[in-house]
């Protein structure tokens, strides 16, 4: 959504529609900043849920695919 608005602002600017272009550009920047901030908060929350040094359970290990034992 943010990127689409940003593109629209660029097209409007090319068509010399400066006022709508500026409005679309400001809206796109606001959307992009808000969504980036949300992604950052989500990532931090996931990191907190997985404590450092967490040990895999036997069930999790069992479900893993075979790793090629390269030397």
């Amino acid at each position, binding site marked *: 959504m943010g990127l689409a608005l940003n593109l629209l602002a660029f097209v409007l600017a090319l068509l010399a529609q400066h006022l709508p272009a500026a409005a679309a550009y400001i809206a796109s920047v606001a959307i992009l900043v808000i969504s980036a901030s949300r992604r950052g908060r989500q990532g931090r929350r996931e990191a907190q849920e997985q404590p450092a040094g967490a*040990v895999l359970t*036997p*069930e999790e*290990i069992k479900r893993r695919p*075979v790793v090629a034992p390269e*030397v």
Partner: protein
Amino acid sequence: MKGVLFYSGLKGGTGKTTLALNSAVVLAYLWRDVSQYPVVFLDLTPSLGTASIILMGDPARAAASPSLSDYITGKLADPLRAFYVRVWNAEKGQFRLVFSYFSQNTPYMRRQLEYVLKLVRERLSPLVALIDAPPLAIEGIVGGLVDCVVPVTTPDASAIEAVRSRIDAINAKRLRPVLNMYMPEYPVSAIHAAPWERVMESAFGEPPHIVPFDRLLHATRQAVEVEVLKLRPSESPAVRAILAYAKYLSTVVV
């Protein structure tokens, strides 16, 4: 075919099976294009060793299937009918490990093991046969039948002495000793008043290959899986060390 024995004297719980089985799997993968059956793994533990359960995938299936115990008790005329092929698929292709084991506590004689190894050599033509020795007095049985012996110990004075005092009876080339389950937080033997590495060097004539203690290895054992096939070297220092030892074996045994 070179025979390699993983040995800890009369001491159990030293991580010998983990090292032997993982080395066998790594070498089977490494030599997958060299030979049809590059590696044969023999679990000499009486009454179902851990390696045989992992390779068969299920204790009940391992107990019910023909094993070398059936050859020893006369139920099988051809011991190779007690051998199995475990196949894995990796990104670079398929690889296989041939193995056999004892499902019961059937005492066997040196000439019976010698005959089994002779058939393996003649009919399977592997590059190596890796043998997981049980913590029993088997020196009289395997002595002289293998080419190399891997001393496997833990940071424990009696474990080191258990290997040092009996390993000469194997009458085989001694490979680099392995110090398993090493914890860097406790690097010194209080009994010897010296670092464990120095104690090992003094006992075996060369510094040990260190495999650190790693909880992930224990979790993988609980999952009845082969560690090097389920854990990435980047997440397990013990797997990194086992891979390095397998690489060393690949250069010294063939």
